[in-house]
């Protein structure tokens, strides 16, 4: 065998091995994408059967019959998630600030571990706890109890991302504020948090996306309702609850279709919120860019 043949043989082996691995990676990539594609395809095919613009604005009709909208569930979802956001964000930011700024204190370590544990508590357990503490005390289900359950689910997500963000505030900025004799809370509010705002915003968005799809904690707290309800002291519907209640009516094809339409609506809302959040985050990032 001549030298040139030997070289060609090696090249061929390497090329075919390279091709083999490339194909393997491609297949793995496709496998990862398949579930997502399947979800979207099913949602579109099944969801569009019952979905129409009217679905967004009409009140619910009969459970067994066709038609009827989900306006009560959409309003409920926005109200409860919104209130949860208002409750969770300041609390989570405060936790993150405490954990980062007072990291030498032992309590900060405890708080940090507690946040991690909270993140690991199954959402149904959160629902049961809020049921025991709020619903039983108030003696009825309410949108407020639902918001509280969602806020508890959001808190560790926002706290952890905010913590990671505050940790990456450059030391030279920290020292800059100190060298000017700035109070720490002012440095945080006017320099550190604005500087990492885009990252914190991403965390908030992540938390909203997670909470907006939660069903289990709402079943024990806001219960669900067939009316358009804006009073937080009353039971409230939400899209996941609406989907659940329609989907369990397996005997009625119209209910099943409404569940698909609700699912399509929910996923669309999450998608739009994500795009909106990304846009906001990129604007914040441009403002804070070095």
């Amino acid at each position, binding site marked *: 065998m001549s030298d040139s043949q030997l070289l060609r043989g090696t090249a061929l082996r390497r090329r075919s091995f390279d091709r083999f691995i490339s194909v393997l990676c491609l297949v793995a990539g496709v496998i990862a994408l398949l579930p997502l594609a399947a979800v979207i395809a099913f949602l579109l095919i099944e969801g569009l059967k019952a979905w129409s613009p009217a679905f967004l604005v009409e009140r619910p009709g009969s459970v067994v019959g066709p038609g009827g909208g989900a306006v009560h569930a959409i309003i409920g979802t926005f109200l409860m998630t919104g209130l949860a956001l208002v409750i969770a964000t300041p609390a989570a930011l405060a936790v993150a600030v405490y954990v980062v700024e007072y990291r030498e204190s032992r309590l900060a370590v405890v708080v940090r571990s507690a946040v991690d544990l909270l993140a690991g508590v199954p959402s149904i357990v959160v629902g049961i706890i809020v049921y025991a503490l709020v619903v039983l005390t108030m003696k009825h289900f309410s949108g407020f109890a639902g918001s509280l359950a969602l806020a508890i689910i959001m808190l560790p997500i926002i706290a952890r991302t905010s913590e990671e963000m505050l940790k990456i505030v*450059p030391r*030279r*900025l*920290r*020292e*800059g*504020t*100190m*060298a*000017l*004799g*700035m*109070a720490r809370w*002012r440095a945080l509010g*006017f*320099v550190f948090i*604005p*500087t990492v*705002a885009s990252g914190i915003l991403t965390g908030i968005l992540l938390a909203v996306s997670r909470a907006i799809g939660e069903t289990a904690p709402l079943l024990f707290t806001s219960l669900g309702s067939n009316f358009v309800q804006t009073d937080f002291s009353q039971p409230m519907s939400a899209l996941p609850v609406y989907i659940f209640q329609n989907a369990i009516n397996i005997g009625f094809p119209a209910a099943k279709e409404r569940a698909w339409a609700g699912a399509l609506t929910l996923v669309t809302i999450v998608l739009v919120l994500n795009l909106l959040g990304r846009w906001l985050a990129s604007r914040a990032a441009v*403002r*804070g*860019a*070095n």
Partner: protein
Amino acid sequence: MDEENDDVTTTHAAIGVNIAPPALEVAHEDAEVTTTQTAPAAAIEVRGLTAHYGTKLAVSDVSLDAGQRSITAIIGPSGSGKSTVLRAMNRMLEVIPGARLEGSVRFHGMDVYDPSIEPAAVRRTIGMVFQQPNPFPTMSIYDNVAAPARFNGMVRGRVETDQLVERSLRLAALWGEVKDVLGKSGASLSGGQQQRLCIARALAVNPEVILMDEPCSALDPIATLQIEELARQLSKEYTIVIVTHNMQQAARVSDETIFMSMSPERGGYVVETGPTTRIFTNPSNKLTEDYITGRFG
């Protein structure tokens, strides 16, 4: 003290804020009793300063003076503790985890480490400019200068703030370049402009001393010369201490030079101090001579 205070108030009349917080004055009266000798023109006196980072000795037994309304340069090789000494002067050393120090730092005879004194008050009176320009990235040029002063209660209202911003930017020789873009982000400026913005920001909280920690090491030669020229201008009203790697810079700008070196047993220490012209033409120590002639360091 009273005389000095009057001086300062006159100097800063445009801002109209007395520089010494009450706490500093109280401490001063105690200090007068214990201070045995005070060089008349020294604004800052460091005596017997020894500092550690954890268990590592950074500097030992450093004593030096920084003359009022003049530029004192601290030069020396890397690791000789120049920045450590500078940071000890405005209590920015203690913010480094593990840093601790012994010895005393006096500002016009007042012990800046007196328990009755707020570190923040010391840092406002003895301002600092860092190696890397650090404007607040989310704030406009205007707010970079105005916000810290406003937070410290130096100014109130739009007119007063406008005046302070203009005055500080003029003092920092930046006004002409930014007066039409005050709303733009501080981070949009060039490195040299950012450094001058940081100087303006420090001036806006009405300091008496400005510490500069290698302020030109991240800048190009032209921006470096601008900062040096600015330092010369500012030294007519302010006390300036500048740490630099660059011997030419020390020779160009400073009135007094402090040469530091280090050894394994002593950490960083002061080799020689004196008027800059003498240090650079006729050093009395062999180490200094070797360093300034480029034989080591």
